[in-house]
């Protein structure tokens, strides 16, 4: 289930209630505040595409602009990239790990 309010015109940034860290080239997201995730000792990892999306969520660009950048970095049709990105960012938003600006 994703957040229906996340569209290509949305501008998102990582929530202040999570901490993202890179360990051994793997990006992990550690919940800081309650209400993120289901338990107090859970963490989250992203695949390489997810990592690239996360690192572009800077609170300044729309998701459409981020999709433009991703299209130049990853194989796949523009429609596939947009669908995957909206799915992931929507999931992050539902979990309150990113916030719309």
């Amino acid at each position: 289930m994703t957040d229906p309010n996340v569209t290509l015109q949305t501008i998102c940034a990582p929530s202040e209630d999570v901490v993202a860290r890179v360990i051994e080239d793997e990006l992990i997201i550690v919940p800081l505040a309650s209400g993120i995730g289901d338990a107090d000792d859970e963490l989250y990892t992203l695949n390489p595409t997810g990592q690239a999306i996360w690192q572009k969520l800077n609170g300044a660009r729309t998701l459409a602009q981020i999709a433009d950048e991703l299209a130049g970095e990853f194989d796949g049709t523009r429609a596939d990239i947009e669908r995957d990105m909206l799915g992931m960012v929507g999931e992050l938003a539902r979990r309150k790990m990113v916030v719309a600006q």
Partner: protein
Amino acid sequence: MTQLEIQQFPLWDKLKAKRVPLSFDLEITARCNNDCRHCYINLPANDANARARELTRDEIFDIADQAAQLGALWCLVTGGEPLLRDDFTDIYLGLKRKGLFVSVFTNATTIRPEHVALFKKYPPRDIEVTIYGSTRETYERVTRKPGSFAAFTRGLDLLFDAGVNVRLKAMALRSNLADMEAIAAFGRARTKDFYRFDPQLHLRFDGDPVRNEEIRQERLTPTEIVALERADEKRFGALVAGEDKLINAEFNHVGCDHLFHCGAGNGSFNISYDGTFRLCSSLWAHGATVNLRATRLRDAWATLVPRVRDLRSRDPEFLATCRQCPIVNLCLHCPAHAHLETGALDGATPYFCAVAHARAAAIQND
């Protein structure tokens, strides 16, 4: 996105193979508002010298940054009583903001509503609280602090009423032995899946001879320790079930003169209130520590730890006894505790030996 319980993190094996410091303990103060008879670290709450030597908040954050850069994920904030520090909230939140899973050891006597609010909004991985007694009489016999039992129960109630994740534990000693059954009931009534007790006391980090003698007086006899373990069905069952891992001739390390066969320094380290880095909390031997006010953590981890772990014994008595002992996993003996007891990393402690043999006999005779 993959959601994982921290124990399932797929990088663990990779990180362990690279000897990454996954966890560390931070003793943010040695001061405590209690004066427990058995404590290995506590200094008076108003000890100005101890307070002056404590790492500052910024020094703690610098160390935590270094630890996180090396791959650390867990941090235990302990003391002394960590809540005595005026900047505890800043330290706790700052460590969380480094992306660390933070646990806290506290006696709960100074828990205030603002602490509860903090832990509710920014949950610790867990909070561990020690039960020194189930009654005021027993509790304060151990803590030597009038009013501490009421403060303890008040703090505990605040935490439990708010749903904070608290685990309860106990130390078994002479002063609370008669109360241990009630202490266990007190603990189990409040924590569904976790209550444990430790009947083995080690000596103080500062070597204070008067306090060390108090600790020796508080130690239970081997018979008493075995009786306590037998009375705890779950604990004793686990000991019996794990007999092959606890009593095994392959542990004897014949022909090896390395002192360290434990996990100290393999994936964790300790920092004292004044910045002293150790491989484990009890390892204070000369040459086995370094102060992080003068040395970077990366250097301590890369240089000191391997050097300490390569230390050897030249004591023929140790090599012929403890080094070859098949019940070492039932014993409190280790180089660190040996040093606290005898001043030598390979010194023998007859009390530890007697306890280990009594435990082994109980397990094997069950």
